[in-house]
C-alpha cells in the first residue's frame, strides 16, 4: 500500500456532481480538478455546500449524480473506510479514552501495519506537528490547540492520497488560529501532501491556498489563485465575499475622448467592457482608495463621518454622492478628522467590474 501519489493524474477530480437532501439541492453540477500536492481551499458562507462536497470526497456522503476520481481511480461509491484519504474534523473527534499515541496510531493499527513501524511513524508524526511531549496524555486532557495538532497527526500518519480539512481552525482563538495557519501551510509544503481545506474565513483562504474555489448556494462560482480571486473576481458575490468592497454605479460617458464613468460631476475610470450611455456597476477595495484634501480634480468628494483606528491601519467612513464608502489608509498617514471634507480617488487597475447595472 504505497502512499506515493500517482503524479500523472490529478489528485482529485469531481465530474458533474449533484447532491440534494430531499428537495433541497446542496451541490449543483460541480466540476473540479485538484492537482497533486496542491493546497486547495473551498471557501463560502455556511450552507453553501462546501462541507457536503468535502464529505463526498471523504466517502461519508455519496453524490446523486456525477463521479469522483482519486489519483485517476473512480471512488464514487467507495465508502470512507476504504478510501485512501483522511479527514480532519472541525471538532477534532479524538477518541477520549485513548492516549495521544493510540489516537494517532489508530489508523495504522486498523490497517495492520507492523507494531514497530506504527511506533516509528507515530513518533515521527507527533514530532512533525509538535506534540511529541504529550504522547502519553489522554486526548481529553489536551488544550484546543494541542487537540488540533493531534487530529492532524492522526490523519497525516496514514500518508493519505489527499488530506481533507473541515474548518479545522474555527474552534481556536484569534492568536492561535493565525499561528496554526502558518504552521499548517508549512507542514503541507514540507510533506507535499494534497490538502483540500474547507473554510468560511476569506483571510485564511487567501493566506494559505495555492488555489481557491468559491462556493455559494451549491454552485462553484470561481476557481483561481488568491490573486485572481481577490483582484479579478468573476462574480459580484465573489467580489463581496472575498475582501471588503465599495460598490456603486456610474454613468458611462465619453469625457474628453475617453470612455469614463461619471459620478458627482467627476470622471472615474471604468472597465473597458463598459459601453457609453449605460449605467455600470463598479467596485473598489477600501485599501485601494486614496483619501486626500478636498478639491482634487477627477475624484469623488465627500465628508469623513467616522475615523477608526485599527492599529496597523486607519479606517475612514466617508459620505459621498454614491453612498458611504470605506477607505483604509496606513496608520502613519495624515489623519483626516471626522467632519473634514476629502477627495477620494484610485488607480485605474483598482476597479473591479461588476457589469451593467440592472435598472
Amino acid at each position, binding site marked *: 500500500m504505497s502512499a506515493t501519489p500517482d503524479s500523472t493524474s490529478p489528485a482529485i477530480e469531481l465530474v458533474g456532481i449533484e447532491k440534494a437532501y430531499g428537495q433541497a439541492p446542496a451541490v449543483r453540477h460541480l466540476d473540479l480538478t485538484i492537482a497533486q500536492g496542491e493546497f486547495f481551499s473551498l471557501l463560502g458562507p455556511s450552507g453553501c455546500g462546501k462541507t457536503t462536497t468535502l464529505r463526498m470526497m*471523504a466517502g*461519508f456522503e455519496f453524490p446523486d449524480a456525477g463521479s469522483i476520481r482519486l489519483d485517476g481511480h473512480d471512488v464514487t461509491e467507495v*465508502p*470512507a*473506510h*476504504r478510501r485512501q484519504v*483522511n*479527514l480532519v*474534523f472541525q*471538532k477534532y*473527534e*479524538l*477518541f*477520549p*479514552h485513548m492516549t495521544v499515541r493510540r489516537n494517532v496510531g*489508530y*489508523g495504522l493499527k*486498523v*490497517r495492520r501495519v507492523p507494531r514497530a513501524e506504527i511506533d516509528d511513524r507515530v513518533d515521527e508524526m507527533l514530532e512533525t506537528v509538535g506534540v511529541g511531549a504529550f504522547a502519553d496524555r489522554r486526548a481529553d486532557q489536551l488544550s484546543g490547540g494541542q487537540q488540533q495538532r493531534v487530529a492532524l497527526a*492522526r*490523519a497525516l500518519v*496514514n500518508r493519505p492520497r489527499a488530506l481533507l480539512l473541515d474548518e479545522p481552525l474555527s474552534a481556536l482563538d484569534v492568536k492561535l488560529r493565525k499561528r496554526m495557519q502558518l504552521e499548517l501551510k508549512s507542514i503541507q509544503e514540507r510533506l507535499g501532501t494534497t490538502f483540500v481545506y474547507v473554510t468560511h474565513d476569506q483571510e485564511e483562504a487567501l493566506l494559505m491556498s495555492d488555489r481557491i474555489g468559491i462556493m455559494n448556494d451549491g454552485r462553484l462560482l470561481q476557481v483561481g489563485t488568491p490573486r485572481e480571486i481577490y483582484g479579478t473576481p468573476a462574480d459580484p458575490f465573489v467580489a463581496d465575499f472575498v475582501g471588503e468592497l465599495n460598490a456603486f454605479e456610474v454613468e458611462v460617458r465619453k469625457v474628453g475622448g475617453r470612455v469614463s464613468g461619471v459620478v458627482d460631476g467627476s470622471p472615474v475610470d471604468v472597465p473597458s467592457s463598459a459601453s457609453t450611455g449605460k449605467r455600470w456597476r463598479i467596485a473598489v477595495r477600501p485599501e485601494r482608495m486614496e483619501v486626500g484634501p478636498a478639491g482634487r480634480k477627477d475624484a469623488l468628494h465627500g465628508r469623513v463621518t467616522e475615523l477608526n483606528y485599527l492599529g496597523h491601519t486607519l479606517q475612514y467612513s466617508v459620505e459621498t454622492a454614491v453612498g458611504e464608502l470605506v477607505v483604509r489608509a496606513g496608520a502613519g498617514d495624515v489623519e483626516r478628522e471626522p467632519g473634514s471634507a476629502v477627495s477620494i480617488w484610485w488607480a485605474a487597475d483598482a476597479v473591479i467590474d461588476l457589469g451593467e447595472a440592472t435598472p
Partner: protein
Amino acid sequence: MKPNRIVAALQLAPASVYYSALFGAPLLVLVAYSFYTTENFDFVPEFTLDNYVTAWTSEVYRTYFIRTLRISAITAAVIAVVAFFYSYVITYTLRAHRSLLYFFVLVSMFGGYLVRIYAWRSIFGTEGIANSALMSTGIIAEPLDLLRNGEFAIIIAMINFYLPLGILPIYAAMQNVGPGQIEAAQDLGSSRLGAAGKIVLPLALRGVTVAFVFTFIATAAEWLTPQLLGGTEDQMIGNRIAYQFGAGFDWPLGAALAVTLVVVLAVLLGALFTVVRRWVR
C-alpha cells in the same frame, strides 16, 4: 456575603432527608428486625442469629438464592446486549427519530404491567398460545416444558419488562459519543462494526455496566413476575421474603433473607465493577 451558598445548603437538606428516609431507614429497620426473635407469632427485640442460620444453612433457601442469581444474571446479560444494540441504532442509525424511539422506551417502562403479564400468561400458560400453536402446526406432538410457566417464561417476561431500564443508562452514555467519533474511526479504516466495538463500546462501557447492575438488582428483588409466571416450583427468593412478611408472618426471617440478598448482590456487583474498571484501563 454569599447568600447563594446558604440557600443551596437549605435546598439540599430536604433532598438528603428524603433519600435517606427512602433508602436508609427501611434498610436499618430491616437489619434491626433480622436480629429479632420470633415467639408465638410475635417478634420480640431479643438479639438472635437464628434467622441468619436458617437463611444460610437451609437447603431450600440456598436453592432459591441460586435460582434467583441465575435468572437475574441471564436476564441482565441479555438486556445489556440487546439494550446496547437498541441504543446504538436509535442514537446513530435512526438519529432523526431518536426522540420518538426514546419516548417509546420511557413509556414502556410503566405502561400496562398488568396487561402484559396476562399476555405472557396466555402465551406461556399450561394451555398457552406457544405450545398450542406449535402443536396445531404439528411441529411438536406434546407440550414442551420449556414453553410452560417456569424459569424460561420468567426470563423472557423480565427481559421484556426490564429492557427499558437497561436502555436508559446505555442510551445516556452514548449521547456523549458523537457520531463524529464514529466517522473518525471509519475515516481511519474501521468498518461500522469495528467502530462500534473499538470506539462506542469502550466509551459507553460505564453505561453498559450500570445497565447490567440496575437490571440485576431489580430482577433479583422481583417476586411478582415469578409469582404470576413461575408456577409453584420455579419461584425466586423474593417470593420467600414476601411470604415471610405476609402469610408466613415471620418478619425476622424475611428480614434476614432480604439482608442476605442485599449483601450477596453488593459483593457480586462490587467485584464486577472492579473487573470492569481494570479492563477499561
